């Protein structure tokens, strides 16, 4: 068979190679044109895994593609496309496609066949992790978590340092030695990241003013590891889940409040599999009904748009509490982005994406967070309100990289409440 028949010439409308934009004439490349085989070994390998079964159920209706956040930014991605590649012999276990999914669940929301990437991705990634086929950045986050108890690589001893910066006294369980109503599971980014801590200290102040009987675990708390689990580190997740459950068992409390929707997801849905069954709520769910008790003296005069975190909204069904809080803040005018609530667009941080920004840069035309920030700017909002600790830093970076500095502020809902308290 001649070369011409066997291969095809691809010419892209625009292509950037090593930072240089190539016009169509220069970016011609050859690709095999004719499909000679449908080697489904790769598909069978995924479908044979526990959790991977539904990969083989795709009937190519293509509803997942327009809602896949990675495809939206030029990632040529989505379950339908992965299925077709698997049907042509792709080995997902060693392919870059394995790491692009943020497990945002927008595809699952619209999939008539319930092809469940939230189960498929962790199952395949777990195998890749065991084989050592993991992008370096992600491997570093895994190693940090393993070594230090958090993906940032900060010392476990410093996990409660934010308490010192708080305006109010924060009850730490091992010090107060008593039963509390609410055990506050702070999680890593709220405890260590400088912008995370801004929200955490604000939340502590709000809790104190509301007179909530609560305590934190301080240096006894370890990462919930939900994102590490979704990125394939099931072993690490189990180890940490067992440790946290052991710590929880030392204390008496009525319910757990989490700052982080990812921790909410882990504690609510995964910890029961290891014997840890608790009432778990996100902080917005807990504060929403208590807002009228707060004396909010400061009128904020912000036009605010709210970004629904994937793991609070689609994964755990909470859309109203954050909005209720925002609407109860004097001066705040809430305006919605087109993609909101169930349709919310992913920030790119979930499912390991928080630790794959460098990797993803090679596969997309813009970052997911940039795409989202542009949408927020289009609403004319002054503030992009968030309530997931991944988002403040991701969106603030994106505000800068999209040239919107000065136009849009990114604030956690807790920071906005604190600001209104005066």
């Amino acid at each position, binding site marked *: 068979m001649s070369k011409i028949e066997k291969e*095809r010439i691809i010419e892209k409308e625009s292509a950037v190679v090593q930072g240089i934009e190539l016009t169509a004439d220069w970016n011609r490349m050859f690709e095999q*044109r*004719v*499909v*000679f*085989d*449908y080697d*489904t070994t790769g598909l*069978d390998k995924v*479908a044979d895994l526990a959790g991977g*079964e539904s990969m*083989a*159920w795709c*009937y*190519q209706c293509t509803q997942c593609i327009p809602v896949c956040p990675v495809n939206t930014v030029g990632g040529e991605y989505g379950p339908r496309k992965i299925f*077709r590649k698997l*049907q*042509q012999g792709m080995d997902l276990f060693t392919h870059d496609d394995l790491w692009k999914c943020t497990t945002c669940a927008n595809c699952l929301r619209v999939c008539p*066949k319930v092809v469940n990437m939230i189960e498929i991705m962790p199952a395949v990634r777990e195998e890749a992790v065991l084989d050592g086929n993991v992008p370096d950045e992600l491997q570093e986050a895994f190693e940090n978590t393993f070594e230090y108890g958090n993906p940032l690589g900060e010392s476990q001893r410093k996990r409660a340092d934010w308490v010192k910066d708080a305006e109010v006294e924060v009850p730490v369980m091992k010090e107060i030695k008593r039963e509390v109503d609410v055990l506050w599971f702070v999680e890593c980014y709220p405890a260590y990241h400088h912008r995370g801590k801004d929200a955490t200290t604000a939340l502590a102040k709000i809790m104190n003013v509301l007179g909530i009987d609560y305590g934190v675990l301080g240096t006894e708390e370890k990462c919930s590891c939900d994102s590490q689990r979704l990125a394939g580190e099931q072993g690490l997740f189990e180890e940490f889940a067992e440790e946290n459950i052991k710590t929880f068992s030392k204390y008496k409390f009525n319910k757990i409040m989490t700052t982080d929707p990812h921790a909410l997801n882990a504690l609510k849905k995964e910890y029961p599999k290891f014997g840890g069954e608790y009432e778990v709520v996100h902080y917005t769910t807990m504060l929403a009904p208590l807002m009228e008790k707060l004396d909010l003296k400061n009128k904020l005069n912000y036009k605010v748009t709210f970004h629904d975190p994937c793991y609070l909204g689609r994964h755990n069904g909470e859309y109203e509490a954050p909005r209720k809080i925002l609407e109860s803040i004097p001066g705040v005018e809430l305006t919605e982005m087109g993609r909101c609530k169930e349709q919310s667009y992913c920030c790119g941080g979930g499912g390991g994406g928080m630790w794959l920004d460098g990797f993803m840069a090679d596969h997309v035309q813009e970052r997911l967070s940039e795409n989202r920030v542009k949408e927020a700017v289009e609403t004319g909002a002054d503030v992009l309100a968030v309530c997931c600790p991944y988002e403040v830093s991701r969106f603030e970076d994106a505000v800068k990289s999209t040239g919107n500095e000065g136009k849009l502020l990114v604030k956690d809902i807790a920071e906005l409440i604190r600001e209104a308290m005066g």
Partner: protein
Amino acid sequence: MANQDIVIIGGGPAGIEAAKGIADLGYKAILVEKRDRLGGNPDEQQYAALTPDLRDTEEALEEMIAPLRDNPNIEVKYNTLVTGAEGALGDFTLKAVSMGKEIDIKAGAVIISTGFQHFDPGRETQKYGYYEHDDVLTLTDAEKMLKAHNFVRPSNGEKPKRICFIQCVGSRDRQIGNEYCSKVCCGISSKQAIEVRQQVPDCKVYIFYIDMRMYGYWENEIYWPAQEQHKVNYIKGMATEIVKKGDKLLVKGEDTTLRRPMEVEMDMVILAVGMEPSEGTKQMASIFGIKQNKYNFLETTGGPLDTVSTNVPGVFAAGACTGPADLEDSVSAGGLAAMKAIASVRKAEMATA
């Protein structure tokens, strides 16, 4: 006095159900069958299992036929071919050749259930090489092999490693003249794909299609299990031709979602042939003066509201002689025809009384 007996021509699923219904209602049914057995195409073509429930064909047919045996209200005339008809509603005389002898059959009304025949893929075009390549088969050929639990390549007797089905062969085709969808082939291909995966687990199975028409429960009863549990691969895109390559078949077409040509090797290819009116159906149209549609199926008068009455009073049609029909359609129409035929002879009787 009007004759109240009903003659049914054709002993397939529709005719069997009609005869049983008439007898159950206390009337006399005369079932005329050209072969020496009942069961129609499912029996004659040795279907392995029925669609959609994969029930064993012999067992299901036996369940249908058993109530006809020793039934005082049913007379089955085997080896009998209707050759002519005279009279009208309430007083028909059918000319027939029965066991080599010419006979008359008298009846008040007639139900025609002479069914369909499978499209012959060599009839007009040779693009799939049905008569040239041993390993190119039709659904009916495959059905026989599956029934015998001997699903092998006819060319060498070995078990196949890769096979594909090509959908819509002889259907939805203006050049062939069959513009209609044959309705059952998507389901039957999927059913056979499941059976192949069960009988030859190492064999990969592909289905090339324009669009899968798995209406109603066939979607969840056949299509989804075929893909999800039995790992049948559905590829959107038709194969246009088959050429021989060594001892394999090279199936050429376009993968439409990839927008790329495909040339894939197969051990066997099964053509999902559609339905056409049987010779018997066309003969009965001419004998009774029943209108036929442009595809030569018998035309019923009421569109979707009356699927069994014809332009000739007292003559009804049921099942695949009226157009592509699955087993459910045929059995349902058989029951309806029984009811309408009895109603017609009762009305004729009341009119003469």
